[in-house]
Each structure stands twice: as C-alpha cells, then as structure tokens.
C-alpha cells in the first residue's frame, strides 16, 4: 500500500485541478487495498506475482489515447479551447494528462497479480471493480504466448489462457519473455497432473518438430485463392460500373476501399500471421509458432480438439495441398496448418486425433437419384464417413471441406427432414460438438439416416469411455 501513496500523492493536486475524474480514482484506492489484503492469507500459501514492469508504460496509453480520440473528433472546439486557455495552462494540462495516464498505468499494474496454486491459476485485477478469476488447470483448453511487435522489441510477452465459457479477459499482459515461457511450462505441467513440487522444475517439455511451412509455399498458396481474386475482380468491376454510371471517382473509390481491406486481410494479413508456421509435437500437446511481425506461440493440450476441418480449395487440389483448421472449446485459434501436402497434414491430424487415419476414411456419396432434385449440382460434394473413432462429413465442390468430429466429443445428434427432402426420401444428420459448432451430413437416404441417428448416439456414448483423461500425464 505504501508505495502507491507517495507515487500518487504529487500527482493529485495537478490532476485534480484540471480533471476532476482523477480525484475519485485516487480517493477510492485506499478502501480497495485493505479489502484485498485479507484475501491473501485465505488464498492458500500461493504467492502472488506482479506482471512485468513494462506493463504500466503500455497501459498508460489507454486514457491518453481516449482523450486524444475525443479531441480529434472535435477539432474545431479543441482549437478554440486551446486558444482561450493560453500556452502555459495548455502545457500544464498536457502534463497533467500525462501524469494521469502514468498514474492509471501504474495503479492498474499495481493491482494486477497472479498466483499459481495446486489446481488453479488465480488472476486478480481491477482498481475500482475488483475481479478475481480462478482458472481450473484441468479445464485449461489452450495456452498461448503472443508477442506483438512492440513487445518483441522490449522482450516481453503476453500469456493467454483459454477456458470454456469465458471471454478473452483471461490473459496476463505483460510478462518477461522467459517468465512467460516458464509459466506456460509450469501451468501445462500442473494441468498434466504433475505434483506441484515437480511441476515448477519440469520445465519445457521436449519438443519434436513435425512440420514447417516454407514462405514461398505460403505466398503461392495465398495467390492461388479463388475467393480473393473473385472478391478483387468483383470489387473492381462494381467500382468501375459505379464510376461509369455516376461519373464520380470518389464514390467508386469509397466503394473499393472495404473490398481492398478484405482482400488484404485474406492475403497479406494472412501471410503476416501465418509466416514461418511451425507445428511441433510435445507431451503437452501441439505447439504452433507463427507470425512475421507479431510472433505467437500456441499450445493445444491433448484431447482438447473438438473438430478438425480439412479445406481443399479448387486451385490447390492439383498440387495436393490442404489447409487444416480446428475447433477447441473456448479458444479462438482455428488454424492448425495453413498449407501443407496432404500426407504431411494427415500426419499432423493423426497427432491431434490419436488413432485416426484420414486416408482410410471412405466417404459414401449421397444417393444421386433423390438428391439431384433437392440440391442440384452441389449434391455431388456431399459425403459421409464413419470410423470407430470419428464422424466425418464432406461438402462443397469448388472448395471442398471435410469436417471430422471424434465420437467422444459429440454432444447430441439430430436428424432433420424438410418437406421437399421427405418427398425425395432423404434426410440430414447433424452432430453438435463441444466448441459450439455443428457438423452436418446432408442428404442421406431416410432409412440410413434414421438408423444412423441411433448408432451415432451409441458411438458417442461409448466413445467417451476410452478417451484420454483430462490430466494427460496421470
């Protein structure tokens, strides 16, 4: 408590003079501190750590940025105001603002701490509104270490924890780079079921590289994306048409801008994030390292993957390239491999879903005579395959997508049949998985679908029995 007061006290008069908002923030801090103190002895012997001292510098920009944002929106009023104020007062105001920002950054850093206990990670944040998050380690879905460009320059990193049902609030930003890696290793070791004493010393699990995407293959694959070229051509054509009709260059350029933004996100932006994509295997799960400017190091612990999707765009098929996406409950990571040869990609998938041989899946097509009239042309893309481990459904003709759900992750099974489908004697079968998604096998023969519904329910029920435990080292 004491370090806050002296640091804060000199700021108070200057800040209170200009911005009354500073006063309540200052006044409210003392009651918060004693309130927090009793938690400490009650919260087990776990010791609380603070984040890296770089953090306040970064957080300080939040209020300053907000003020600048407001000012720049009302430029005229601000200029007028500045003239009235005079230069001395203006400089004082600026200083006050800076100090306020520094104070905010310092206080938010001071009041954020984390502790690792035997079963939980506890994060305490909040200056006025306290928030204590207890994250159960055996429910951890993924742990990511990310380094934005600025953070890379200063040698710090952000640790992000994915748990089902929470927003992206649970992150520790920033930690020292080495500290972040050590903490990740410890969290994963404890989540795996190592004893606490061991966990701290286990260190990084041995890593065994599986796949690395070369840069030239990545940019080639991005150039071979029909969707991007289609969007670009469509956007250009539309804006030329608008120019021709309205004779206003500005309007047509304004129309083109969002299209260009989207094209950039799907090509250049993806190149930046997917650059140097490395997939490695470790006992803690798969490690994904990628990024040109912002480096990210993701870890997906074993048995957390709910769904795997193999995407094969039209122009990639001749080269035998595929993209692999995955769904993990509560996590936003969705790319497993941005582009790879089919065989390499299947080998990676086999690590994520043990015992699954994708090459051996045999897809049964939809019955042609009935489906032709329900979904013309595209019905040929539909397919369904079931192995003892997984349910797999395929759809799409230009861009073929194969979605694979392990039976153990299936939450419920549904059969739907519209009036037109019933007339043709077909039905759709869907399975819902734990990452809030649904995989649908469309247009199966009605009798097969009805039988399948019950068979799949049995498989999902029993599939759980031989799944690996949540604590994978026990």
């Amino acid at each position, binding site marked *: 408590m004491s370090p806050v007061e002296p640091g804060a006290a000199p700021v108070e008069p200057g800040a209170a003079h200009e911005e009354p908002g500073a006063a309540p923030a200052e006044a409210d801090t003392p009651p918060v501190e004693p309130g927090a103190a009793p938690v400490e002895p009650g919260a087990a012997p776990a010791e609380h750590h603070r984040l890296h001292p770089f953090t306040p510098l970064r957080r300080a920009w939040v209020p300053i940025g907000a003020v600048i944002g407001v000012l720049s929106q009302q430029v005229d009023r601000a200029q007028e105001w500045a003239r009235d104020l005079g230069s001395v007062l203006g400089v004082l105001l600026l200083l006050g603002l800076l100090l306020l920002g520094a104070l905010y950054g310092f206080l938010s850093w001071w009041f954020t701490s984390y502790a690792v206990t035997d079963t939980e990670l506890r994060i305490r944040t909040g200056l006025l509104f306290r928030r204590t998050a207890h994250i159960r380690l055996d429910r951890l879905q993924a742990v990511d270490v990310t380094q934005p460009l600025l953070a890379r320059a200063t040698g710090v990193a952000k640790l992000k924890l994915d748990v*089902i049902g929470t927003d992206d609030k649970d992150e520790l930003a920033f930690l020292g780079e080495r500290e972040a890696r050590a903490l990740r290793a410890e969290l994963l070791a404890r989540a795996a079921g190592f004893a606490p004493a061991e966990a701290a010393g286990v260190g990084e699990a041995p890593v065994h590289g599986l796949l690395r995407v070369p840069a030239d293959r990545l940019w080639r694959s991005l150039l071979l994306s029909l969707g991007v070229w289609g969007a670009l051509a469509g956007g250009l054509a539309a804006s030329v048409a608008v120019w021709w009709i309205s004779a206003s260059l500005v309007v047509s350029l304004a129309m083109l801008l969002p299209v260009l933004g989207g094209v950039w996100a799907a090509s250049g932006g993806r190149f930046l994030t997917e650059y140097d994509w490395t997939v490695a295997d470790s006992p803690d799960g798969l490690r994904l390292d990628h990024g040109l400017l912002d480096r990210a190091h993701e870890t997906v612990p074993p048995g957390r993957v709910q769904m795997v999707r193999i995407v094969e765009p039209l122009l990639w098929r001749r080269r035998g390239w595929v993209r692999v996406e995955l769904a993990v*409950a509560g996590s936003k990571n969705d790319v497993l491999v941005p582009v790879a040869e089919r065989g390499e990609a299947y080998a990676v998938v086999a690590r994520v879903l043990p015992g699954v041989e994708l090459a051996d899946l045999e897809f049964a097509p939809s019955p042609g005579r009935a489906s032709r009239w329900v979904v013309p042309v595209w019905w040929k893309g539909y397919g369904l395959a079931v192995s003892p481990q997984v349910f797999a459904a395929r759809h799409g003709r230009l861009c073929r997508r194969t979605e694979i759900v392990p039976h153990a992750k299936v939450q419920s099974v549904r059969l*739907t049949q519209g009036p037109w489908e019933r007339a043709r004697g077909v039905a759709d079968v869907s399975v819902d*998985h734990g990452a*809030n998604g649904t995989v649908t096998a469309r247009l199966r023969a009605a009798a097969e679908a009805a039988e399948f519904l019950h068979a799949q*329910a*049995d498989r999902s029920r029993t599939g*759980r029995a031989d799944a690996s435990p949540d604590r994978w080292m026990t």
Partner: protein
Amino acid sequence: MGLPGGLLRLRRLLLVLWTTVLGVVTAVLTGVLAGPAWAATGLVWAGVLGWGWVMLGRNWRSWRYAERADDLLISRGVLWHEQTVVPYGRMQLVEVTSGPLERRFALASVQLHTAAAASDAKIPGLAPAEAERLRDRLTELGEARSAGL
C-alpha cells in the same frame, strides 16, 4: 410419450383470441373506410383460424419424447421433422420453466443444455409433476453417466 392436452388447449385459445381480435379490427376498418360490403374481408381471419386450428393439432400430435436406456430422444415437427438424441452423460444442465400463461394452464417446459449451444432439446407443455419427475430423473441419470468435455 406424447404431450398432455393442456398445451394444445392453450395454443388454440391464443389462436382464437388473436384471430377474433384481428378479424374484428379488419372488418371494422374496411367497413368504415371502404363501405359495409368490404367488412366481409374480416372473414379471411376465420380461414386462418380454421387452418391454424388443424396445424396446431398436427404439430402437437407430432411431439414425442422417450427416455431410453442411455439417451433422451425428442421427435417433433410435421413438415420440418426433427429428431434429437442427447446422451444422458452429455447433459450439463436441466431446467424447468413455466411462464404466467403456462402456469394458468398448469403447464411447464423442460429444457436440456449440453456444452453445444446448438443441441437445443426442449419439451414444452408438460404437466408440472411430470416435468419435475423428468428433471429429477434426467439429473440422476446424467450424474451417473457424467463425463467431461
């Protein structure tokens, strides 16, 4: 098992109320604005009433649920037919809800939640005693077969 008659009565009552109100409003408006002969357009709503009456009956009859050994099966819909199977072990939460109108007709709904938001398994219009029995039974079965994600 099908649903008890209360839900059908409630839905048909609401249908009669709404079509009568709308029919009267249409008849009065057209009668005043376009002449008395036009008031007959209100009869369109009588047609809607008749059609809705039959449809509600068919929809109500299509609802089925079965507690099987290891999962709950819900089947519903006539034109758009849907069957849902939820293994007991995957249930995260079972809730019984009952709005003011439903309470007036002594009805309650049971809704199951799994980790997937899409698996929407709801059984409307049960007798409260049956709803509670089902809830307790499902929770019990769910506990016995519970599993993580």
